């Protein structure tokens, strides 16, 4: 006998229990998302007025050097921050897992940047990177325009971004490493494996599921970078066009210039970009992520 899904008492309860989350999701995420897709085909005017313009926003977007530059900046930013950042986080996680004195204190210190507001982090680093009076140029006797040289600025932002993300990623990876059974290492050392071999053949494969999660998360955050650039580079900086990310361009178009339709097209493109890159990663995971423990 077939049961009616909706009539079932248990199912009704189930739906009721998830209703608060689902309703919230529909109102706060799904509805605005559909609205944004719709708006990207209009030339939205101020105060909710709009005119349907078809693919015009997308056409002018792909012919705009500013937009192409922002896309490249965003991808470059990911290339700079994700591999280096995740690798450093892994190293930190392994070091924090070692038997050293004050381990807890070190863990807290590395996690600290995560607790500080990103705006405050960006401001302090901006002062440190100040070309004339900043501590970095003073201590190392450099004369580098960290924030205003168009060829350097994106590296500067990447450094700060890596610095502030490392602690969080390391803590996630650390929990993955601690889940690895000690017996593997014991067996390996009996067989005469070096520490490096242990890392390569035991730690890395065993932590790969966590590593994959960290990688995906870091990539998405990097593709959506905005706050660091807003705080550290900002308006009035001649290097801005070499540093602005897609979301920063979106912010300027939407909230400063008021081109909500065009800005929506930029966001939809960003979503597609994130989708494509994540899809590639999920396909690639079969090659290196190890799920059988």
């Amino acid at each position, binding site marked *: 006998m077939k049961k009616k899904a909706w009539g079932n008492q248990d199912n009704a309860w189930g739906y009721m229990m998830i209703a608060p989350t689902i309703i919230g999701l529909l109102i706060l995420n799904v509805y605005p998302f559909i609205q944004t897709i719709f708006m990207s085909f209009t030339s939205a005017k*101020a105060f909710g007025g709009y005119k349907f313009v078809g693919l015009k926003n997308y056409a002018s977007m792909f012919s705009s050097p500013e937009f192409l530059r922002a896309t490249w900046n965003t991808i470059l930013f990911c290339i700079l921050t994700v591999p280096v950042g995740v690798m450093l986080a892994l190293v930190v996680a392994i070091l924090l897992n070692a038997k050293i004195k004050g381990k807890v204190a070190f863990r807290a210190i590395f996690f600290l940047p995560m607790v500080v507001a990103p705006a405050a982090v960006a401001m302090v680093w901006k002062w440190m990177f100040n*070309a*004339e009076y900043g501590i970095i140029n003073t201590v190392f006797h450099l004369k580098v325009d960290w924030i*205003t040289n168009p060829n350097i600025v994106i590296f500067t932002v990447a450094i700060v971004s890596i610095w502030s993300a490392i602690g969080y990623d390391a803590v996630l990876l650390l929990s993955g490493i601690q889940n690895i059974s000690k017996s593997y290492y014991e067996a390996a050392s009996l067989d005469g494996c070096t520490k490096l071999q242990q890392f390569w053949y035991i730690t890395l494969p065993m932590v790969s599921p966590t590593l994959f999660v960290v990688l995906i998360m870091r990539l998405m955050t990097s593709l959506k970078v905005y706050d660091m650039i807003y705080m550290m580079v900002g308006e009035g*900086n*001649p*290097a801005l066009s070499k540093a602005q990310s897609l979301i920063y361009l979106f912010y300027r178009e939407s909230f400063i*210039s008021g081109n909500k339709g065009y800005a929506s097209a930029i966001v939809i493109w960003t979503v597609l970009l994130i989708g494509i890159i994540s899809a590639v990663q999920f396909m690639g995971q079969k090659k290196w992520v190890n799920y059988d423990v």
Partner: protein
Amino acid sequence: MNKLVKRGISLACSALLLLGFSACGSQGNGESAGKGHLVFQIWDQGQKAGMEAMAEAYVKSHPDVTIEVQASGWDEYWTKLEAAATSNSMPDIFWMHSNQMFKYADNGILADCSEIVDESNYSEISVENAKGSDGKIYGVPKDKDIIGLLYNKEIFDEAKVDYPDENWTWEDLENASQKIYDETGKYGYMAYSHDQIGYWNFVYQNGGQILNDDGTAAKYTEPATEKAMEYYIGLQKNDWCPTQETFANTAAPELFFSGKGAMYYAGNWDLINLCATYPDMNGKWDVAVLPKCPDPAKGDGRASISNSVSYATAAKGKNRELAMDFLTFLGSEEGQKIQGESGAAIPAYNGLEETWVQTFADKGYQLDVQKMVDMFDYSVKYVNNPSRPSWEPKVEQAMLDIYGGITTPEEGIQKIQDLVTEAIEEE
């Protein structure tokens, strides 16, 4: 232990919730005219005290009214105001900048204030800035502002250069800067990328224009305009002027008040805050009128850009009657006088400039602010037209590209001309 912590957290959360609800509850009381609660939104923290002083004076004669002044940052202000306008939940009273006046007025967001504004009471520029495209008045003139030259007396003394006076020309500005740099190694005139506070003044002094008189055509490639813009941009090539890169690291006011640079242009609205922020510098710096153009293509070489802010209320506001009454007070001689005395801004009301000037003397700030007021004789109205919100950010970016060496000044100015022309046509 764990349970205790959990219970503590849940208690704290429910307490917060309760607080939130009660805060909401206290807002919607008393709707009848002459009674109620007004929210007054502004973008300048520095003027909050002045606005509160006016609200207090109004509440004194209207004891059933409460007025809450809320200040936020500039960018955030416009994001919030637009969202509020779209959802018809605007604050009862808010500031309207001439940048955005056309956008809000022409979309029917603002209440018509023609009935409570007697144009003859206010300065011409302030009244013009309160008008929509249809020529009707959509705000009560609040103030008028002007650009002046700030200079550090100590650096001038050190370099043995005479202080700037009303006879100064661009050449004097350059010569003094050179001498200061040679004698002290400090920056002279700091010409940073800015329209209103920067190159617009030079353009109008040279007899050029940014837009034509009725705002329907861009004039960037007019010879007088182009020449002045190239002159202004070129100032950064001198050793005595910081580059745009330096300004992005450390802004001109910071360089000025840390004694690293001798001169920069600033709006009068900054002065009272600067005095309060740098009490140790009192008496060590002063203001002067802008140096004039020595060989203008047209006119006498004098100009200073003047803009103004208006007070406005929503066309569909809930407390409209009461808001209108408060707006009338804000525009009255009494209200404007209180504003002037707070030092926040020069009142738009005719003949009240003195109240603003007097405040500086009363507070013991040694600043010859009368010089700022003197410039109203030849002030030029802030450049504006309905499409400004769409072209302004693009022009700013194009200027930065010129400063960054990505485009030449000539190409850049042509690009700006095209951008603005396109924006005007699209409108």
